[in-house]
């Protein structure tokens, strides 16, 4: 099933809570912005992953927990954690 703005945001909150070992209630949404990403890895490639070089439309989801901000990126096909502790993760896709 694909994502929309709300389902991607909820999935990002769940993922961040899991990674940090906190409850979802401790994760807040500081902003969800529609934006273009440079490619179909949403500018957050994982490892040696190759991606299509087409501008992809999706959402940047900014979350806050433990006083820090975290960035997720999503489009209708996928959700990625961008630079979580220095690395990108494909959460779902």
């Amino acid at each position, binding site marked *: 099933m694909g994502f929309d703005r709300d389902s991607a945001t909820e999935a990002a909150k769940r993922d961040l809570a899991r990674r940090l070992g906190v409850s979802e209630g401790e994760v807040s949404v500081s902003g969800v912005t529609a934006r273009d990403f440079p490619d179909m890895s949403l500018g957050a490639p994982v490892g040696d992953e*190759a991606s299509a070089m087409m501008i992809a439309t999706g959402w940047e989801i900014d979350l806050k927990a433990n006083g820090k901000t975290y960035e997720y990126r999503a489009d209708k096909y996928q959700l990625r954690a961008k630079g979580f502790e220095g690395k990108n993760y494909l959460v779902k896709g």
Partner: protein
Amino acid sequence: MNRGNFLVHLMIAVVLVALAAVVGQIGRWRSMLKVQDTTPKKAAKITPVKVAELDGRPELLVRFKSGINYKQVAASLNDRVEDQIESVDGLVAIDDLDDADVEATVRQYQSMSELVDYAEPNFQIALDDSVDRNSRPAAFAPNPVGAPNDPLFSDQWALNNTGQNGGKANAHIDALKAWAKTQGSAEVVVAVLDTGVDYTHKDLAENMWIRPANLPEYTDGELGTIDDLHGFDANANAGDPMDDNGHGTHCAGIIGAEGNNGEGISGINWNVKIMPLKFLGRGGFGDVKDAIESINYAIQRKKAGVNLRVINASWGSTQRSKALEDAIKAASDAGILFVAAAGNSSTDNDRRAHYPSNYDLPNVLSVAALDRNDKLASFSNYGAKTVHVAAPGREITSTWLGDQYREASGTSMAAPQVAGIAALILASEPKLSMAKLRERIMKSADPIDTLTGKVVVGGRLNAAKALGE
């Protein structure tokens, strides 16, 4: 010279002059037919246009019965036999010197049934664009020479930029001029190494590669035998490369959506064969292994006799892979050009490499993206040493899943412009080597000042120049 000899020579001279006139006219007709052949393809409607409205052309075609002195008959009606069609006994083209109503003149000849087999107006074969004119752009109507009747053609600024939608006129690959020479060939196979291709799309189906009946199914030592009727899916190790994303279908349309079929867009090649190689998944990303599997498949198919000459690679990453490099080198050894997107990070590939476009191999062509004003697209990577050419890549209309069309941007859209032109060149010069093909593409760019120091050739690709037009 005695009178008898003089008459003999005079008669010979008259015959020779008449023969020369006939041969000349047949040559002119052949030229006309050649021109007409390059314009419409199969879907073009043909409407007979009486040439009565045209000056200096025979108005009638009449076939006389055998042995009839048709010149005498014509002269009696104040008509002139302009030409005899030698391959059809008794058939002549007649110029009505009175310029009377053509239908009446035809009826006049038809009434002489003891002399005439048939008579008909001389029709000029012409495209009927009366239906399509409504859907064509106004800017396009005055000069339709060589243009396809596809209704979205006016959106395809990359092929023919008239300055539409704020663009710069002639900031394009000059497809109309190129098509005067060739519109592609079904003998040329281009592999689209991507998310697959919707091979059922109504604007692509005719130009999709299908495994020939005499070519056995693909057999791989590890993967086993795969029914690769429509291509190859390395993502699923299967033979069905149906696109579930849309990106590959978009690239395929740029290269070879069927042209002049009254549907959607026109590809750079009106005729070509597109072989889908799927390795990117539904999200538009994939791994190097699957890319290598796909390239290996392409090479094996080339070795099995498929005339696969070009691979389009509208994807990439910043991770170098020697295995991928070796696979692309193997493609080079097999004579396959590898056209790669330069990347969309707005960065300099000379400093921060992007692969596979940065592999320094004899078959790799790296492509940057331009907008409709001949400016490097804001997202496009560049590189004075590592990005070879630039091509249109912003706001490109092409085919999409479900018989749809969509505008998309990226060096993904620029690479297939180059792959498409490569195929067009090969349609014209099938025996051109890969090295010469690559060289031809690079030497045919239109210089653009702002691209100096940005791409190797400092210019934008020009299909017409690449074809020597």
